[in-house]
């Protein structure tokens, strides 16, 4: 198995706001798999954000002002 490229692992750690050392075990994954994981995680975050915006949109207008826009 091809060893994981460090930058992919770093990107994953960065996305999760965790130190790279906490993902040490993931270094046995291939670079391709780590890249896919990074991409999937990005997509999950975006999807969650979109879902949240849709949910907020369904809330009656007089309650919407109570939600702070995402910082």
């Amino acid at each position, binding site marked *: 198995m091809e060893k994981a490229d460090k930058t992919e692992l770093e990107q994953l750690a960065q996305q999760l706001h965790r130190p790279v050392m906490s993902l040490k075990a993931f270094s046995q994954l291939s670079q391709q798999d780590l890249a896919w994981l990074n991409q999937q995680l990005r997509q999950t975050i975006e999807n969650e954000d979109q879902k*949240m915006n849709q949910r907020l949109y369904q809330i009656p207008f007089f309650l919407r002002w109570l939600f702070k826009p995402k910082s």
Partner: protein
Amino acid sequence: MTRLAVQAEIIKLARILNVPEQQLAFMQVLAPENLRQFRFAILELLQSQQKSRFRHLATWVNWLPRWISIFWVKHFLEPFIVAQIAVYLSTESSYRIAKHLPAKTIAAIAVYLDPRLARELLSYLTTHQITDITQVLLEQRDFVTIGRFVSMLSDAVLQDVAQIVENESDLLEIAFYIESREQIDHLVHVLPRERIEKALLIIGDPAQRLLWPKVLALMSYISYGLKQELGDLAVQQGEPVINAIIQATQEDQLWEDMLPVVACLSAHAQDFVANLPALRRVEIIQSIVEAADRCDLWADMLVIVNYMQDEAREAVALAIAQIDEQVLHHIAYASLLRSQWEVTFDIMRRMPIDKQRQCHRILDGYMQQLDPETYHYLDTLLDRYQIQSSVAGS
């Protein structure tokens, strides 16, 4: 618990990443603890991304008269949003709202609720409310959420909840998703024995094939004491059930999970299992030996081999002889740790001459460092079992 625990983690992770489990097959090389930490890191990230949005609304929910908050939750706010707001409310405030909500609404919120918060909230809810919520989640077949919350219930409430879970197959699904090993023990302890027996018998039912790994998971997740209790109970069900367990373990290659279970059985049960014809089949013995070597389970394996009769020992010796020399080092070390030299020598003598020489050479290395008493003991065993010397022709 290794392969099955990894499988459970992958299912949970796939649910979060919204991908089929098969796409995460490449993560099977990781340990369950690593996958679990990764899953929690993602959950925390997703939660913190949205968290700040709800603080303002939570302040209002806390400040407004209760009936308005309840009205909002019932009619305007989605379950996910309510679960996010709950993070900012005191448990008491959350309970004051929750007690006016129908079970269906609370069940929908529970799917997204932070487990740390849920633990406190559950202590406020009545048994009746909890069983109603469980009923809704059961109808939705959301075993992941039930598994998450079941582990937080007291004995008395857990017994009532178990009663409404009518099918043993559903109980197995729930147990599969419980996060901690102690809590599975807890669940098994409060269940009546006949329900556990029924759950074990699922493994002999071809119509429930998909559930078989979950029966094995139940047997491998529990504590050592309970492994023996449940394993002995399985043995009491007779040879067809044990054969079905062996078949399922072989089909799904779960020996690394099941070997520690067999090693925990009572002497009588181990003797029964170790000498079953099914366990002497070449492909099964090969899988067991490979799993023992790959997962460093020789200490458990030697305990089992100790109960095996001649025919089974021959099969083990043959399977070991087909792996590289490294396996012999692993066996020697496990023999030293468990003082299982007699059985190890008996296996050695059944191997081809060249393998016996390799074994002898490895033992020579050990014997240089041992105390005189152990040295003498091993020397006697070498003679008694007529293990070929490492020097050819001597």
